[in-house]
């Protein structure tokens, strides 16, 4: 199976598919309501920011795509970090909650929702790790 480039439209769709076929995610996120920007900040060979949009609702991903202009959407949550940090998270080498707690990733949005849905966040990362991903750096 060919690897998919991290941050590409194809990669976002692959994550969308992983979430929508995961019973564990559906169970964990059944009360989750809120869309996301996953923002990859430029670093090294990656010179432009990437904005990955996902509309997550009650255990499903209703819509997902890459946007070039961040004003395209105004999501409830924005999680951002440098490319190298996202790479470690997707490779399951960096726990995303620890990354958030140490400021390696940053999150804006309703923290009450987040603190009550930690399992859903973990399942999203597990879905990421199931995608055969290649990285630009």
């Amino acid at each position, binding site marked *: 199976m060919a690897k998919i480039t991290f941050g590409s439209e194809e990669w976002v769709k692959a994550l969308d598919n992983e979430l929508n076929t995961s019973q564990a995610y559906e169970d964990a996120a059944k009360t989750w309501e809120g869309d996301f920007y996953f923002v990859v900040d430029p670093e090294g060979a990656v010179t432009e920011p990437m904005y990955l949009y996902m509309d997550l609702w009650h255990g499903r991903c209703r819509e997902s795509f890459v946007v070039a202009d961040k004003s395209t959407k105004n999501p409830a949550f924005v999680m951002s970090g440098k490319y190298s940090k996202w790479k470690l998270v997707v490779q399951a080498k960096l*726990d995303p909650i620890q990354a958030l707690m140490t400021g390696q990733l940053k999150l804006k949005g309703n923290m009450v929702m987040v603190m009550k849905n930690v*399992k859903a966040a973990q399942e999203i990362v597990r879905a990421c790790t199931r995608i055969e991903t290649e990285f630009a750096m």
Partner: protein
Amino acid sequence: MWFFNSPQIVFGEGALSYLAQVRGKRAYIITDEMMVKFGFVDLVKQQLAEANIETRVFDQVEPEPSLDTVLRGAQLLRAYEPDWIVGLGGGSPMDAAKAMWALYERPDLTPDAISPLEYLGVGQKAKLITISTTSGTGSEVTWAFVLSDPAEKRKLGLGSRETMPTIAIVDPQFVIKMPPRLTADTGLDALTQAIEGYTATWRNDFSDGMCLQAVDLVFKYLPKAYANGGDAEAREKMHNAAAIAGLGYINSMAALAHAMGHSFGGAFHIPHGRSVGLFLPYTMEFAANGGNYRYADIARFIGLSAPNEKESTRCLIDAVRDLEMRLGSNTNAASLNISRADFQAAMPKLLDYAENDTQIVASPRQPDRAELEKLFWYAYDGKAIDF
């Protein structure tokens, strides 16, 4: 990248007198009515008076403090404008004090939004002193706190690195008269923190030693403190063990026994230590059945010998069960007079809340929903985990 956080810890006989050296103007003592009745509040006020610090007392913290209580307390803090907040009592008053401190400084927040995921700016108006009067929660040395949401019958594990107490007073004079049941419950809380802190996926070189030492102290001194409350050495060692366990787990992470204990305790109003201690051996077995034998290190450290890691792990689990039985603790949920029908009715919420408890994220083996339900039922019936 990770952190090791700790307050300044003043420990041992006479530690309370350090308060006379604190500099400030006004202190708000956050506590409960029992602390007033026992005269503990007066002891604290006397020391602060020597430091020329005015005091006011909020003594309405209930066991498992609610979101409403901390909102009410924060309002009083804003009116009095203290530069010190003193959390005096068991885990509940100290936890409430942390939440009130954050809300005093950030009135725009709701208590359940106090998270370690963003900068809050706590500590601009006041600092926090914690004084523990039980030996187990470790709340005196941690930034975490547990609040209850009575409407949802849910306990919420919250906190921010910024809600780490500034000074922790660990003075054994407060625990010498603790009743045996409270001694056992709180001691098992310390044991659960230490074992989970050592085996959580967020463990690290800095927290490991703390956890090992705490387990050793609990196994040596908790039975003595339980059997003879007047044993001053056992009381002091257990008081230290609780703080050391707190430091160990807060700089690593707790795990599945805490997640299940919070969920169960919230649903059936079971004290925290009793609840997490009940689930500890079951979650250890579940982790071990998944090939996690780090428990063997603990077994070796406390002098349990077995020929290999698997059997050492088994020895430790048996030792935990044996300790719980010697302390007359509940080793299954049914023994808490919870009917099977009530347990079944509560199960959907037990699962939802345990699955999304913050303490579950670093468990050495994470159950899926079906496994979690089985774990609850095995713990209800007192069956050894075989999956």
